[in-house]
């Protein structure tokens, strides 16, 4: 159902913007700060904003790798630690919190995160998570140590290994019981969803972030290309491969999802059957999934009082409801997949494969981010001449690691959600909008066309020109307006907090200082653009004045 908006957004938004960034990087041959300075001196703020956003991203994104390491190390046990609940203190039953929710959720919220009931209760730093985070940063440091040349070789592994694992999972996933339900759910278009603008918005956002537009990493990587490189072909190929991978990954995801939903549905039915058998002392095997409804009516007719007593406990099991439980957020991805894996045979193998794949993807993203931060630093002569490459990378990794310890505290996951939701979204939209407008109108579309012709040797297709000049900016502006109206309509911002006593998530309001942090996050990256323009303006004014006084 999601596929139609996804493809349309890809063609209208993804490909043109990707081509634009690659072309800019290849033409200007510098990281994001230098490249925008060349286009127009007033736009140095855009590059700085990209670097700031990348810096925020690298701060919090590596925590996901730390979690993946944690799960990976715990996969070497039999049985898997998230498969069963731990026992309570007098060994008469399972832990209370684990009883109320499932064992996988308990493992995530209590044993991995040790989450506090709300944002205000900070708690202590979890040393296990801190260790995993340090390890994750060491791995990233190892990969970027020698600069982009070595990063290129690492990416061969981090990009190809996930494909192998996905193929293994595809074969395993499609042979699982109930996988077909998930696939049918994925491919049936839901027409009422298509008319909902939220679907189109999330498709656009998804394309945006999966291609990595606006972070400056694309410009940084493209600056290392040969100038005669055919970036038009590369842009089309990259975006198509990216989408094909997304579709492939979502097929695997939905088949596993279907398996999990079917498994939960069948256990729900079995629980209901057991409850009825025990309450009415019926013979075993007399109630099956097929005759359950008729037997329920029969029992309601023959023993109305006892049935009425039982009614609150009898859940209405529905496969659709299981499939509809939305999958979003990083924590949910860990919970859903580990729940599916624990029910497979040889679960340790699949668990190891899955978390290795997750690690590869995460480290690949981190490499892009750190490249976006390091390229401007190594480009600037002030820093590059004084310190060698290794020291600069080491300092950046160290600072990020220390800041990242915030996310290993008990309330760390709430701060992680803040960063995840607000650090990148609005700023990236603004950055990309300014980029498109800058290239088309300030630098001049004709001038850029000539540059591309010099580089590639081919005339620019009219399709790209229309997209860059009109369609993409309009689309981004409408996305922007949507986000702002959404925020204004809902009023205060809220977050989901885990309540251990109930065993589920509850909605709470953000305290004042959290709102201040959110505002700071958004402002610090967006304000760079006008500030940069202002600083350049003031500098030029001063220069002109000093020149005129000298003359």
């Amino acid at each position, binding site marked *: 159902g999601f596929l139609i908006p996804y493809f349309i957004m890809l063609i209208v938004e993804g490909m043109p913007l990707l081509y634009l960034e690659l072309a800019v990087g290849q033409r200007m041959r510098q990281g994001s700060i230098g490249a925008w300075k060349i286009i127009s001196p007033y736009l140095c703020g855009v590059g700085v904003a990209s670097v700031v956003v990348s810096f925020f991203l690298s701060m919090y994104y590596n925590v996901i790798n730390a979690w993946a390491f944690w799960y990976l190390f715990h996969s070497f046990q039999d049985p898997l630690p998230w498969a069963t609940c*731990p*026992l309570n203190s007098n060994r008469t039953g399972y832990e209370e919190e684990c009883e109320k929710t499932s064992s996988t959720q308990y493992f995530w919220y209590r044993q991995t995160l040790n989450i506090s009931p709300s944002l205000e209760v900070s708690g202590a730093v979890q040393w296990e998570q801190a260790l995993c985070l340090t390890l994750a940063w060491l791995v990233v440091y190892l990969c970027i140590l020698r600069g982009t040349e070595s990063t290129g070789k690492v990416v061969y592994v981090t990009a190809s290994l996930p494909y192998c694992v996905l193929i293994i999972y595809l074969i395993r996933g499609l042979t699982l019981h109930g996988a077909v339900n998930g696939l049918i759910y994925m491919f049936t278009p839901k027409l009422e969803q298509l008319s909902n603008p939220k679907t189109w918005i999330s498709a656009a956002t998804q394309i945006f972030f999966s291609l990595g537009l606006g972070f400056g990493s694309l410009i940084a990587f493209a600056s290392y290309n040969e100038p005669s490189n055919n970036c038009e072909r590369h842009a089309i190929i990259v975006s198509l491969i990216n989408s094909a991978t997304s579709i492939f990954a979502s097929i695997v995801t939905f088949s596993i999802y279907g398996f999990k939903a079917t498994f939960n549905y069948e256990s729900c039915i079995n629980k209901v059957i057991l409850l009825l058998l025990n309450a009415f002392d019926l013979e075993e095997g007399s109630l099956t999934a097929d005759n359950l409804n008729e037997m329920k009516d029969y029992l309601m007719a023959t023993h109305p009082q006892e049935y009425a007593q039982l009614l609150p406990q009898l859940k209405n099991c529905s496969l659709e409801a299981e499939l509809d439980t939305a999958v979003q957020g990083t924590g949910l991805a860990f919970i859903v997949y580990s729940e599916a894996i624990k029910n497979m045979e040889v679960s340790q193998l699949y668990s190891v494969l899955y978390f290795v794949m997750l690690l590869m993807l995460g480290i690949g993203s981190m490499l892009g981010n750190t490249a976006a931060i390091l390229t401007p630093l190594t480009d600037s002569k002030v820093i590059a001449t004084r310190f060698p490459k290794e020291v600069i990378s080491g300092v950046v990794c160290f600072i990020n690691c220390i800041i990242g310890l915030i996310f290993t505290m008990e309330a760390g996951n709430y701060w992680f959600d803040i960063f995840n939701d607000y650090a990148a979204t609005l700023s990236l939209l603004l950055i990309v909008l300014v980029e498109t407008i800058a290239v088309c109108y300030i630098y001049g579309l004709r001038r850029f066309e000539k540059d591309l012709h010099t580089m590639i*040797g081919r005339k620019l297709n009219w399709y790209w020109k229309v997209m860059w000049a009109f369609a993409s900016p309009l689309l981004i502006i409408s996305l922007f307006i949507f986000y702002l109206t959404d925020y204004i309509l809902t009023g205060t911002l809220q977050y989901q907090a885990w309540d251990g006593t109930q065993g589920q998530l509850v909605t709470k309001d953000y305290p004042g200082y959290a709102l201040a942090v959110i505002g700071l996050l958004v402002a610090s990256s967006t304000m760079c653009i006008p500030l940069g323009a202002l600083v350049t303006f003031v500098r030029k004014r001063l220069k002109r004045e000093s020149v005129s006084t000298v003359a």
Partner: protein
Amino acid sequence: MLQVLLLTFSVVTVARAELCKPDAQNAFKVRLSIKTALGDNAYAWDANEEYLFKAMVAFTMRRYSSKTTTQISNVLLCNVTDRVSFWFVVTDSSKNTTVPGSEVEAAIRMNRNRINNAFLLSDKTLQFLKISSTLAPPVEPSTPVWLIVFGVVLCLIVAAIVFLVVAGIQQRKKKNKESTERENLEEKGEVTITIENGIPCETLDLKAGHINGVFSADDERFTSL
């Protein structure tokens, strides 16, 4: 005489029937799920199995209290249903009352494993409803497994980093030595070095020299032979 016997017999039976009733004092409900546990190998629940059950409970009481007075006839079963669930009590023949529930509970908890094995069932499939079972704790090794794996990976990564850093430093030292040697040789005029605009070619940054696409020999522009 016969009538007196019959009367006492019926009184005793009635009295005993009163002792074993659903929700009676010191009575416990038992529930078996034989088909769930054994599938195709499930046995049918009949009078022989009931006899075995009574025997196991009597055995348990004997083991617990070390009294050899509990007989199979002291264990009363009633209300057997199709589910296979029933109630039972343990009577005390000397006092003609039921043994206190706490004693029965403690005895069964002590010997739960033996009772389960006699019926080829487990704690979950042979349930004593008011008696909670002691769950077996999971096996925990002395050092958590994840720390071992973590240690191995950490050592590998640190070793690789140290290797790369040291190699980088050595390379830079070699380059510095070479360039000072070359400068010394230059002064002596012994080595010819290709120079472009006063800069030796080797030190030119690779990024600074690039091929101009317009002027490069593009095969497509020339007519093929």
